[in-house]
């Protein structure tokens, strides 16, 4: 440009003049960054110091907390990208608002520059000013952190990478905003269009999820929130991921953690970069085609205007469908109402958009009916695709050859270990279950999907829920890197041989039982005085603090590896459970079901003198309360799911203290308050009665254990007493 040959001093002088001219953006950006990066850093580190002083934190933890404070303010966990996005939008509006004013266009475009030189200069100024401000405040923040000894190599690398990511975020949001401005003829339209670009991908993604939830029985709400071409969503997801992923004592003292996080988030970062590249390419095209006389119009290109209107109408119409579905029962009538609301909403939104696009001219509300009609057609198409499952979503199972491994996910995990308020055993199955017997898993999934579809169809039609099997979420990890989640219902009567092959597999056990991946718990248990191991069996408990976790876990691993099968868990109930807990500064616990055949575990319990007989201690039972929820009926004589359709209006409750009756009742009951995955409850339990057995040492159950009668074993006197 004209300043190409001027000296450095003049350039600095000119930069100063530029800053003066853009003072309002500068005045907003500087305090924001100062508050976040400088005062924020001081506050977070001060809080860390105060916490360490009051809680008696170890030096190692204290150091870790200080390092984490820097990462929280400037590293992967930061929220400073929100400031970057805000600045990007602000700088874009500051730099390109001339596009909306004839007098400004006359002023700038008559000067000896080309359009591209002007765009380039604005880009350079915005990116340059932001970079200088951002890096300056980061350096200030780092100096403060250094003063508190909160900086090391990995943290610096973390901050450096995050700085690059934030600059990329700034540039991409800046480009998208500039594109919105180039496509608009006035400021209000540009603001609307910026919002359109920012939120449309996220809204579409949410609506598609909601539609799947409404129409697909096997939809599992896991990992499906894929939002594309949205820097905002990319940042929200990656920040969320950083707060889950970057935990533990050593992540901020390990260079690899930085690279691993970058690798895990590569698709999000790539999506942001791709968005920027597309926006930049479109800016080049649009700026070349844009005419001076477009200033003052709304959206300057008619096809794009149509696209925006149709998109907003479609999104609005689908949102209406989602709202209706949230409030109503599913039947044919609801689908009619849904369609009516979609059309009405799309038409109303179409009218509003026309008014807005015609500079708030209310008389334009009935224009562009063809686009509204097109939007309605698209809405119906989307509705029909989902309602009729035209894409085969509800029957899709990947080819065995394309699957790398499978897993059950979202299962209850009997292990918990909290480090910095985060459970390291969360998402255990997803992290550790890798079943490679794909053919059997697919066969089970097909059966489960068919059962789930049939079940959900009945639920939608009748509004009644029943117990037909085990609700499971399955995951297929494809060789391509994609993940497929489905919700299935594994029926109780599924082929036990098939299930044995799956459940007995090494991959299933590794991903189900925390004892196979419990290094953190083992490490913390060593010489830990807060350890407590308690064995609970029927109405007896025994506890010790001497049993090392590692010894217990080794024995349990062996038993699970050798003895645990589908048949075992399907047909037998545990004889007791071991409750391990750490209650010091770190909280951890594990609940291990013990089966009769778990000889290695039983040996360890015996060694530490906490093994108990696998029966009720009758001498310690004070009373038993039996509740009959369906007096006058014998539910065992009803058809298989007859109980499901019955509504209990009254119940009978009898308390027994007579020793003989207590013995008879206990002989007829089974303890049901264990985690009983794969257990065939429907065949083995009587669901008409509950039995509360009070007394004994098992005070963690508030003095009671809850049981059910075995099927066909309800004592006659109980039937008689509760059915009068």
């Amino acid at each position, binding site marked *: 440009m*004209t300043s190409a040959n001027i000296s450095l001093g003049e350039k600095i002088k000119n930069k100063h003049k530029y800053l003066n001219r853009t003072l309002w953006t500068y005045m907003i950006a500087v305090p924001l960054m100062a508050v976040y990066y400088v005062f924020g850093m001081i506050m977070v580190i001060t809080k860390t110091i105060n916490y360490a002083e009051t809680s008696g934190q170890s030096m190692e933890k204290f150091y870790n907390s200080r390092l984490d404070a820097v990462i929280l303010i400037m590293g992967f966990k930061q929220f400073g990208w929100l400031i970057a996005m805000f600045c990007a939008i602000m700088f874009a509006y500051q730099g390109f608002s001339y596009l909306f004013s004839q007098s400004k266009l006359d002023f700038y475009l008559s000067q*000896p520059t080309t359009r591209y030189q002007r765009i380039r200069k604005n880009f350079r100024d915005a990116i340059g000013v932001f970079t200088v401000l951002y890096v300056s405040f980061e350096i200030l923040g780092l100096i403060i952190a250094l003063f508190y000894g909160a900086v090391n190599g990995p943290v610096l690398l973390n901050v450096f990478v995050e700085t690059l990511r934030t600059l990329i975020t700034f540039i991409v949001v800046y480009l998208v905003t500039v594109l919105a401005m180039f496509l608009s003829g006035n400021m209000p339209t540009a603001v609307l269009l910026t919002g359109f670009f920012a939120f449309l991908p996220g809204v579409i993604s949410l609506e598609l999820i909601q539609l799947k939830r409404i129409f697909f029985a096997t939809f599992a709400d896991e990992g499906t929130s894929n939002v594309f071409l949205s820097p905002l969503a990319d940042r929200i997801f990656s920040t969320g991921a950083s707060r889950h992923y970057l935990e533990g004592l050593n992540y901020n003292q390990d260079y690899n953690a930085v690279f691993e996080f970058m690798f895990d988030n590569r698709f999000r970062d790539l999506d942001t970069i791709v968005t920027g590249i597309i926006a930049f390419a479109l800016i080049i095209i649009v700026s070349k085609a844009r005419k001076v*006389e477009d200033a003052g119009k709304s959206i300057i290109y008619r096809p794009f205007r149509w696209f925006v209107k149709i998109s907003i109408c479609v999104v609005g119409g689908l949102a209406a469908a989602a709202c209706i579905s949230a409030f109503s029962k599913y039947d044919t009538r609801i689908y009619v109402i849904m369609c009516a609301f979609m059309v009405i909403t799309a038409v109303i939104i179409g009218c509003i958009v026309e008014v807005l696009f015609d500079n708030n001219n209310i008389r334009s509300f009935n224009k562009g009916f063809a686009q509204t009609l097109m939007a309605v057609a698209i809405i119906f198409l989307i509705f029909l695709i989902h309602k009729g499952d035209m894409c085969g979503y509800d029957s899709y199972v990947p080819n065995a050859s394309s699957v790398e491994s499978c897993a059950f996910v979202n299962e209850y995990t009997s292990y918990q270990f909290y480090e910095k308020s985060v459970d390291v055993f969360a998402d255990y199955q997803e992290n550790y279950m890798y079943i490679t017997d794909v053919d059997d898993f697919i066969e089970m999934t097909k059966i489960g999907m068919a059962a789930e579809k049939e079940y959900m169809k009945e639920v939608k039609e009748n509004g009644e829920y029943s117990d037909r099997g085990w609700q499971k979420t399955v995951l297929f990890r494809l060789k391509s890197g994609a993940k497929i989640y489905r919700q299935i219902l594994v029926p109780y009567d599924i082929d036990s041989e098939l299930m044995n092959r799956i459940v007995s597999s090494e991959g299933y056990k590794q991903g189900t039982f925390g004892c196979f991946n419990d290094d953190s718990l083992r490490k913390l248990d060593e010489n830990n005085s807060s350890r407590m191991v308690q064995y609970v069996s029927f109405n007896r408990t025994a506890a010790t603090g001497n049993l090392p976790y590692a010894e217990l876990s080794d024995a349990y691993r062996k038993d699970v590896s050798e003895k645990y099968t589908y048949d075992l868990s399907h047909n037998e109930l545990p004889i007791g459970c071991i409750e391990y807990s750490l209650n010091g500064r770190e909280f951890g616990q594990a609940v291990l079901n013990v089966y009769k055949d778990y000889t290695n575990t039983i040996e360890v319990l015996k060694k530490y003198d906490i093994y108990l007989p696998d029966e009720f201690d009758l001498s310690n039972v004070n009373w038993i309360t039996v509740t009959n929820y369906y007096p006058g009926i014998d539910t065992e004589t009803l058809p298989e799911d007859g109980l499901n359709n019955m509504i209990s209006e009254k119940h009978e409750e009898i308390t027994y203290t007579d020793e003989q009756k207590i013995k008879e009742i206990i002989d007829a009951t089974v303890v049901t308050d264990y985690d009983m995955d794969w257990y065939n409850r429907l065949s083995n339990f009587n669901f008409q009665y509950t039995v509360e057995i009070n007394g004994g040492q098992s005070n963690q159950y508030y003095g009671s254990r809850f049981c059910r009668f075995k099927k066909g074993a309800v004592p006659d006197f109980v039937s008689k007493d509760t059915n009068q």
Partner: protein
Amino acid sequence: MIELLDLEKSFDDIKAVNRVSLNIRDGEVFGLVGTNGAGKSTILRSIAGVVKPDLGVVLVDNRPVYDNPAVKRDLFYISDEQYFIPNTTPEEMADYYEEIYSNFDKARFIDMAGGFGLDVKRKINNFSKGMKKQVSILLGICSGTKYLLCDEAFDGLDPVVRQGVKSLFAAEMEDRGLTPVIASHNLRELEDICDHVGLIHLGGVILSEDVADMKLNIQKVQCVFDSDKDEKNALEGLDVMLHEKRGRLHTITIRGEREDIEAAFKRGTPIFFEILALTLEEIFISETEVVGYDIRKYILG
């Protein structure tokens, strides 16, 4: 020289400039006059390289102007609604232009602004419309460009300043060969400054001539004839543009040289005959009436 070759520009369905060809010679004041909405500003913005023509080309010293910084360095454009960077003073605007135009003379600007009574350290947004116009014109003059394009240059200026600006233009033309191009509908303002005038109507050029030639080629005659036969004899073969008759007094605007018209009227032996001096405004009205632009028709019916 600035050349407009078959320039065409439409805004949506409206053709603002329709096949305009003009030559603006160096060293003379070119006046672009026209009816409201005739396309004067669009032509000026095309010359300034702001508007891209749909068809045709604008050449400045044989170089196309659009998106051509090298050519734009020779042009300074003052639009009808001038824009100044928010919160700037005239001095800061001078600093800004100093970065852009290598020949910008800031000292002269400050000196001249003082001469016009403008405080160069006062925020421009506190200035009156006329003061802003003065700042723009002074910035334009001090930019040292070869061509100065002014849209409604004298709009809002008081008579003293207007005269001062005209003197400045004259001095600049004399000193360094400045070529001002002035678009206006105020023909009286242009009459005493323009050497050449282009008359624009409905996006097209009706006339482009030196003002002196223009006045020589159109004559306004007031006369009284004894009979219709005399009138017919006198007007035979003349290019009559307008003919009004009040009682026996004829007022006739005729295209042609004074001598030819005098000779023709001798044939008709009028009782009274006088050739009146035409103003630029009268020429403009006559020319536009010929092509159908007669606002009186709409007002008077």
